C-alpha cells in the first residue's frame, strides 16, 4: 500500500472556542491578568524568610503535638464545640423541615413559598463567620451565639436541599396518593416522606460534619468552641498546642465522616 499520496500534516481542530481571534484574545487576557495580579502582590520577602523558620517550628509542633499543657482549655473548648454542633444541628433540622416543605413549589401556595425561599436565600448568602459576628454583637460572647449561628446556617443548607428534593420527587406517586382522597398531611406522610427521608438523614449527618468544622472557625470572632482555644494558642505562638488541636479536629472529622458513611449505607 502506498501512503505517499496522503498529506503529511494534520492539526487538531479547536474543541471549545472555534474562532481563532477569540482564542488569541482570551489567552492574551489571561496572561495580562496573571501579570497584573501577581504584580499587585506586595510580599515582604524578609518577613517571609523569618516566617519560614517559624513554619518549621509549626511543622515540628504538628509532628510532636502537646496535648497536656493546655489540656483544660482544649477539653472545655472541645466540649463547647461538640455540644454546640449537636444542639445546633438538631434545632436546625427541626426548623428546616417545615421551611423546606414550605419552599417546595408543588406542595405549598405561592406566598408561603416565597417567604420560605427568601429565608433560605438570606441564610445561604451570608457566611457563617459574618452571621457569627452579628450574633455575638447581639447575644454576647460564648457558645450560645455559636449555637444560633450554626442553627441558622443549617436551616439554609438543609431546607434548600430538602425543598429541591421534594420538587424532584416523583409526582406520579404524589398524584396516586392524592387520588385516594388523602388529606394534605396524609400526602406528606405517605408520598413525600418515604421518598425524601433517606436522603434527609444522609444530609443531616453531612451537615453535622460541616457544623463541627465550622464550630472550629466561629470561635475566632468570639462565638465559643475549639476555635477560640486554637486562636489563643496561635496568638501565643504555642505551636505544639495548636498542632494538638488541629490533629484532634482532623481525627474527629475523619471519624464522623466514616460513621456517617456507614449510617448512610445502612439507611439506603
Amino acid at each position, binding site marked *: *500500500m*502506498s*501512503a*505517499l499520496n*496522503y*498529506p*503529511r*500534516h*494534520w*492539526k*487538531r*481542530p479547536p*474543541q471549545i472556542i472555534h474562532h481563532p481571534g477569540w482564542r488569541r484574545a482570551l489567552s492574551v487576557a489571561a496572561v495580562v491578568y496573571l501579570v497584573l495580579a501577581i504584580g499587585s502582590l506586595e510580599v515582604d520577602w524578609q518577613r517571609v524568610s523569618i516566617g519560614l523558620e517559624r513554619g518549621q517550628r509549626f511543622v515540628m509542633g504538628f509532628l510532636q503535638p502537646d496535648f497536656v499543657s493546655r489540656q483544660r482549655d482544649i477539653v472545655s473548648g472541645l466540649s463547647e464545640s461538640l455540644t454546640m454542633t449537636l444542639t445546633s444541628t438538631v434545632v436546625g433540622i427541626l426548623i428546616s423541615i417545615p421551611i423546606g416543605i414550605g419552599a417546595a413549589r408543588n406542595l405549598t401556595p405561592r406566598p408561603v413559598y416565597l417567604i420560605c425561599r427568601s429565608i433560605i436565600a438570606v441564610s445561604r448568602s451570608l457566611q457563617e463567620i459574618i452571621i457569627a459576628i452579628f450574633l455575638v454583637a447581639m447575644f454576647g460572647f460564648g457558645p450560645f451565639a455559636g449555637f444560633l449561628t450554626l442553627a441558622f446556617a443549617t436551616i439554609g443548607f438543609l431546607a434548600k436541599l430538602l425543598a429541591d428534593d421534594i420538587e424532584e420527587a416523583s409526582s406520579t406517586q404524589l398524584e396516586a396518593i392524592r387520588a385516594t382522597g388523602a388529606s394534605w398531611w396524609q400526602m406528606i406522610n405517605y408520598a413525600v416522606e418515604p421518598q425524601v427521608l433517606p436522603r434527609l438523614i444522609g444530609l443531616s449527618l453531612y451537615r453535622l460534619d460541616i457544623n463541627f468544622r465550622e464550630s472550629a472557625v466561629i470561635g475566632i470572632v468570639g462565638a465559643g468552641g475549639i476555635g477560640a482555644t486554637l486562636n489563643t494558642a496561635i496568638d501565643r505562638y504555642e505551636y505544639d498546642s495548636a498542632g494538638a488541636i488541629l490533629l484532634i479536629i482532623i481525627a474527629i472529622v475523619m471519624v464522623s465522616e466514616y460513621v456517617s458513611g456507614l449510617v448512610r449505607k445502612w439507611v439506603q
Partner: protein
Amino acid sequence: MLTIKGLSKTYRTGDSALKNVSLTVPGGQIIGLIGPSGAGKSTLIRCINRLVEPTSGQVLLGDIDLTRLGGAGLRVQRRRIGMIFQEYALVERLTVMENVLSGRLGYVPFWRSWTRRFPGEDIQRAWALLDRVGLMDHANKRADTLSGGQRQRVGIARALAQAPELLLIDEPTASLDPRTSRQIMRLLTELCAERQLPAIVNIHDVPLARQFVQRLIGLRAGEVVFDGPPEALDEAMLTHIYGEEEWQTNAPEEDDAPPAPAMPEARALAS
C-alpha cells in the same frame, strides 16, 4: 508467527481460567476462538499482550518470550501486537484522527504525543488507513459522534497504525447489527490478507466465524477441545464445546449447519 506453550491462568479467587493451552499461529492465518462465556477466550487473548498476567507458560512472538518481559521491553513488544475491542474502546472525547494516531504512541516520544506533533510518515499512514476503512471525511469528528460500525472501523485503523505483526480481536461484532457485523468481518479478513497478518478472533457468532476464518479453536472451561478447519466442526463437537442440554433443545430445526449455534450463546450470555 505466534507460539503459545502451556499457558495457564489462575485468578486470585482460585478460578482457573486457562489450563495448559498450547497453539501455534502461522503468518497470514486467521483463527476463530469459540466457546461459551467464561470459557477463557477473552483471558487467552489478553494473556498474549499481557493485559492479563498469565500464571505460567510461554507466549513466543517470533522468538521473543513475552511473558518474561517487564516495563519498557513489554511496551516495545506490545507495539507489534494490534488489538481490537468489543465495545470499540475508542477514547471517546478525542477526534477520530487522534484515536488512529494513538496507535503510534509506542513509537513516538512523549513530547510529540503531548503536542500532537506526530512524524509526517505516521500521519500519512493514518490518512491511508482512514481512507482504507472509508472514514477519510470523519477525521476531525469526535469519536463519540460516530455510529457503532464507524467506531469499530476507527478501532481497526488504530490497531493497524501500529504496523502490527499480529492482531488480537476481541468480539469485534458483539455490539453490532448482523449486516454491519458481516461488513466488519469482511474488512478484517481483507486487511489481514493484504498484509499477510495473522489474527486471533474471539467470536460469539459461530456461523459468522465459519464463514470468515480458516481455522477454529474451541475452548471449554479453559481447555482447547477443538482445533481444526471450520468444516470439521460438526454438531457433536459443538455439543461438546457448548454443553449438552442447551444444545439439544435447540438442535431439531437445524438442517445444514449455520443458524442454530446462536441459541446456546444467548443462553450462555444470560446465565
